[in-house]
């Protein structure tokens, strides 16, 4: 018996050492020319099939042209992305875990009144991949053909019901847009996901929805206004806020999707990853894919991306405080 146990102990310790060796080679390689020695996990803040998940998968497919590295697209949806964010923060800062995030994550952090120093500053924002403007959508069969018609209708005493997912970034945009128009009444109703949001809009539960231009391709809806300084391909006839005589600043608020790593990740990895992102961003297939989905390709690196994140945090805190969604004592 003792012999059997001894054999087992030796075998398992040996196996674990061998396995572990394959698992944490990262620790030894740090700066200089960084090359991945094990699969890199891209952890999405949305479930499989969500927008960021879809784009991450396409990104990985194109990145394969430029690197032999293996990327694993993974998902940890829940609590508006907090689950994924926290998971990444709990991993080693060895460069083998990348966080794929959108403003929704930051909104969830603030909504839950968590410490920004940990949950926002705990990341290094590596590469902002795309901008996705916000727009106001109505069903294709809607009586409203222009944004002005919708506003005039409300000014006659009608309530604009707006569907949006999860009191996230789109809710903030709804408050910023509709809150700035005098004489109208609106109510934003939160649905737990994009699918329920559009089921509600198409089923007539709400009059309009806050969405992205790409939604006009996916669902039977039309855009009344697109918050973007330039025209979005395929939606050239849709005006922006400036053209409607509203605050042009509304055209500069947009959704974004990008990659971050845990603060403290080796600089070599970040450089390697940003170079790869540059290559993908310049790839014609990526550009075509982004254009088809009415997205703008971005190449923002750490400095510009961090600034975007900071703006998002500040404006979200401001808006959520204004509607009494978070405590007035909450600070960045």
């Amino acid at each position, binding site marked *: 018996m003792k012999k059997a146990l001894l054999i087992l102990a030796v075998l*398992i310790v040996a196996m674990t050492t061998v396995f572990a060796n394959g*698992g944490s080679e990262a620790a030894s390689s740090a700066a200089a020319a960084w090359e991945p020695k094990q699969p890199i996990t891209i952890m999405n803040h949305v479930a499989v099939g969500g927008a960021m998940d879809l784009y991450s998968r396409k990104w990985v497919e194109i990145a394969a042209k430029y690197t032999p590295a293996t990327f694993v697209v993974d998902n940890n949806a829940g609590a508006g992305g907090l689950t994924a964010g926290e998971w990444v923060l709990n991993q080693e800062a060895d460069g083998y875990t990348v966080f794929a995030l959108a403003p929704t994550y930051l909104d969830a952090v603030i909504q839950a009144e968590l410490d920004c120093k940990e949950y926002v500053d705990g990341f290094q924002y590596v590469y902002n991949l795309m901008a996705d403007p916000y727009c106001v959508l109505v069903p294709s069969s809607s009586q409203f053909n222009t944004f002005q018609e919708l506003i005039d209708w409300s000014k006659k005493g009608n309530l604009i019901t707006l569907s949006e997912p999860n009191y996230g970034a789109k809710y903030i945009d709804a408050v910023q847009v509709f809150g700035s128009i005098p004489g109208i009444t609106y109510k934003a109703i939160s649905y737990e996901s994009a699918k329920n949001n559009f089921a509600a809009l198409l089923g007539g539960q709400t009059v309009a929805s806050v969405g992205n231009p790409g939604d006009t391709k996916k669902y039977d809806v039309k855009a009344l206004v697109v918050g973007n300084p330039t025209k979005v391909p395929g939606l050239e006839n849709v005006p922006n806020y400036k053209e409607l005589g509203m605050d042009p600043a509304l055209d500069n608020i947009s959704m974004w999707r990008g990659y971050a790593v845990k603060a403290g990740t080796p600089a070599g990895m970040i450089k390697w990853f940003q170079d790869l992102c540059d290559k993908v961003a310049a790839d014609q297939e990526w550009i075509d894919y982004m254009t088809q989905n009415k997205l703008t390709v971005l190449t923002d690196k750490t400095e510009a991306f961090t600034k975007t994140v900071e703006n998002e945090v500040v404006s979200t805190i401001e808006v959520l405080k204004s509607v009494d969604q978070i405590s007035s004592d909450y600070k960045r």
Partner: protein
Amino acid sequence: MANFSKWLTNLSYWWILAGFLAVMIGLYFLFGIWPRTKRVRVQLLCLCGMDYVTLLFYLLTFNLRVSKLAAEAGATPRTMPRLWALLMALASIGAFFAIINPENKPDEKFNRWVFALLVGVGSIFSVILFQYIGYYLSSAIFILVVMIAMGERNKLQLILVPIIWCLFTYFVFYKMLFIKLPFGSLFSWLIK
């Protein structure tokens, strides 16, 4: 009430667990006093355990934030927990009388419960060990110990089962599905 709720919210969950244990032990002896409750006292304890959580949640609702939006909607984050708590209170009264009814089956005797509990605690211990000695070694030890404790004496099986399990998890989960199982700080340190 709001102040008490606030105090309760800030209380560490260890205190809440300690309170739970204290209440359960107290009730165990209390139910032992009357013959009608004595024969079903663990069934009653299960019920009271759920009621403890219910009461705790109910008290905590007083410190839940009610935003303007929620107030306008007419249903706040407090509404549903309170509704379930109320229904739970009513259902518990019904269940209490159903349990102490002499026609109800008395508590099943505890068999080798210490053994089962030890396996349960052992699994918790093995999970805690993941971060130190890694998933593979920890789970292999766990499987081996439980097999021995259950009376398995076949040496070949005692060696093969943990090894096959480790190989299966390594190749299927780590290699094929890319699920990183913890390797443990001990081994990372050895390699460093």
